[in-house]
């Protein structure tokens, strides 16, 4: 064998070993976690959240079918933790006491056609609420990205959609019925027990359990959804104008590609064009494949991505808003999201993209930017402040420490308030500085739950 051939074969062998080594490394880093025991030593069945990063073994599971049963359930083992759909990434739900599901408290209670309001049982899932409201000619002014949450869970965590001048879900609540830890049923609105209304609208499940909610809705409308692939530099430059121009606008930066996905929704009279088959899974897995192949050669990763995305036409759908604004999201992930002063959104987003592309080359999930109007709920991240939101994600199987190391410091430096249901490291002392009415909200919480019946360790840290 010639020396040249030996060298070539040796090189090929080294390359193959290198490629194999990289593939092995990525396989190891992205492996499915060892499954948790389905029951603990006491025979209690595992509960885990959607992403799989929080769990507990509740002593009791309750699923009241009426408000009276909910009152009875409040006498269960402590702490009592209400659970919606388990979509929070933080430890709001884990309990060794009572896990209280609102699944059976679902459906429309009543509505007012003229006022465009509807009273809804708090356990209604958003995927069911959309068609229920459509049947009475109403819709919620906005919806979040995923349609699996319960209304109560969405309200408790300050869940939001996007749109200039459009509030988060709790911003359209006009009245609530709560079962307090004592078993008392409390009605509240802006005139009746206003302090409870302001404190518990975004209540983290710490003030009791919501049984019914009255929503200020709007007439059912048809919207046109357009999904376009754009240059990231361009969308960052155009973002304030884009947000002004569209009823709902958001964009997802595809890191290491120079490209972003712009999603807009606008009211229209155009004929219905149902949304096509889901493209998100295919897109995400393509981004993962690019990461797997080119993790350590970012320039190749960018070129390959841009070549692959060169001729992708916009996706257009026209339908009722509830069918288009929310999504299935079948790929599980973990997420950190902060809500920052609107003027700071683009600058901080640029810094986070730069940090990720410099120091976290394993990231492949998009970075999401949205906009939310101010409201007046005391624990709302949008309390008296229009916000731009920035969210970073990691596949559920992969490490997310980089969020805390790279993204959170940027978001905290500009006074960002964390989404209550998404990953963050803040404690009560730090939160108090961000929320002008934090002390007042805590005083209400202590007054309705003096024994701490609703408090798990995570809530004790938050509401210290």
């Amino acid at each position, binding site marked *: 064998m010639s020396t040249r051939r030996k060298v070539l074969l040796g090189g090929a062998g080294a390359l193959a070993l290198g490629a194999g080594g990289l593939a092995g490394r990525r396989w190891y880093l992205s492996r499915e976690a060892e499954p948790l025991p389905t029951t603990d030593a006491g025979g209690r069945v595992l509960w885990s959240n959607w992403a799989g990063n929080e769990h507990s073994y509740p002593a009791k599971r309750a699923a009241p079918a009426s408000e009276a049963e909910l009152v009875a359930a409040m006498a269960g083992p402590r702490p009592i933790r209400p659970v919606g759909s388990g979509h929070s990434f933080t430890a709001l739900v884990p309990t060794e006491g009572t896990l209280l599901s609102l*699944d059976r408290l679902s459906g429309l209670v009543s509505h007012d056609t003229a006022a465009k309001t509807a009273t809804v049982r708090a356990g209604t899932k958003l995927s069911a609420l959309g068609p229920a409201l459509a049947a009475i000619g109403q819709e919620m002014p906005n919806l979040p990205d995923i349609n699996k949450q319960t209304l109560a869970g969405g309200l408790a965590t300050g869940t939001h959609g996007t749109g200039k001048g459009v509030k988060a879900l709790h911003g359209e609540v006009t009245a609530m019925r709560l079962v307090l830890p004592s078993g008392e049923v409390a009605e509240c609105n802006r005139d009746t027990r206003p302090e409870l209304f302001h404190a518990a609208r975004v209540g983290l499940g710490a003030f009791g359990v919501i049984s019914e909610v009255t929503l200020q809705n709007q007439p059912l409308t048809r919207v046109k959804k357009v999904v376009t692939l754009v240059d990231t530099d361009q969308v960052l430059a155009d973002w304030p104008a884009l947000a002004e121009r569209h009823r709902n606008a958001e964009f997802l930066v595809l890191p290491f590609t120079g490209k972003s996905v712009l999603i807009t929704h606008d009211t229209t009279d155009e004929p219905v064009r149902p949304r096509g088959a889901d493209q998100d899974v295919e897109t995400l897995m393509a981004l993962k494949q690019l990461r797997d192949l080119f993790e350590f050669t970012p320039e190749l990763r960018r070129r390959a991505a841009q070549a692959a995305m060169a001729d992708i036409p916009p996706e257009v759908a026209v339908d009722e808003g509830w069918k288009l604004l929310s999504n299935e999201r079948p790929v599980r992930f973990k997420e950190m999201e902060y809500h920052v002063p609107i003027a700071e959104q683009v600058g901080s987003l640029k810094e986070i993209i730069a940090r990720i592309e410099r120091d976290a080359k394993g990231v492949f999930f998009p970075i999401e930017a949205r906009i939310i109007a101010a409201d007046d709920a005391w624990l709302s991240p949008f309390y008296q402040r229009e916000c731009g939101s920035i969210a970073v994600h990691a596949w559920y199987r992969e490490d997310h420490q980089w969020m805390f190391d790279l993204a959170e410091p940027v978001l905290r430096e500009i006074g960002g308030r964390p989404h209550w249901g998404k990953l963050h490291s803040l404690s009560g002392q730090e939160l108090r500085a961000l929320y002008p009415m934090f002390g007042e909200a805590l005083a209400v919480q202590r007054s309705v739950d003096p024994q701490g019946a609703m408090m798990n360790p995570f809530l004790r840290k938050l509401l210290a």
Partner: protein
Amino acid sequence: MRLLLALPLLVLASCGEAPKPLTEEQSAALKPADARLAALYEGSCKSCHTVADSLAPLAGDRTRWDPRWDQGEDALLAATIQGKGGMPAGGQCFECTPDDYKALIRFMAGREEAK
């Protein structure tokens, strides 16, 4: 109508013919015969297991369920409680007991009479 849709499944199962894929509409028309189980199904499993975009195997679609059924009921129960792949732990049914999960799996796998 639901009964009519369910009948071909039973017939196929009994004569050993190869099962055929279901559409979303055919899957959504099925529900467990037991009222309590049906309520659990409607409140949790159905929101994904009748929607193709969710990537979950459609309820009643033996072409998707038979390979899973071959893993054994205990393995399916464990995967349901622990979560696996796109399937979140507990299938988002937080009031379900292990026996409920077993019954729901049997129904979705096309191993129990539907209504």
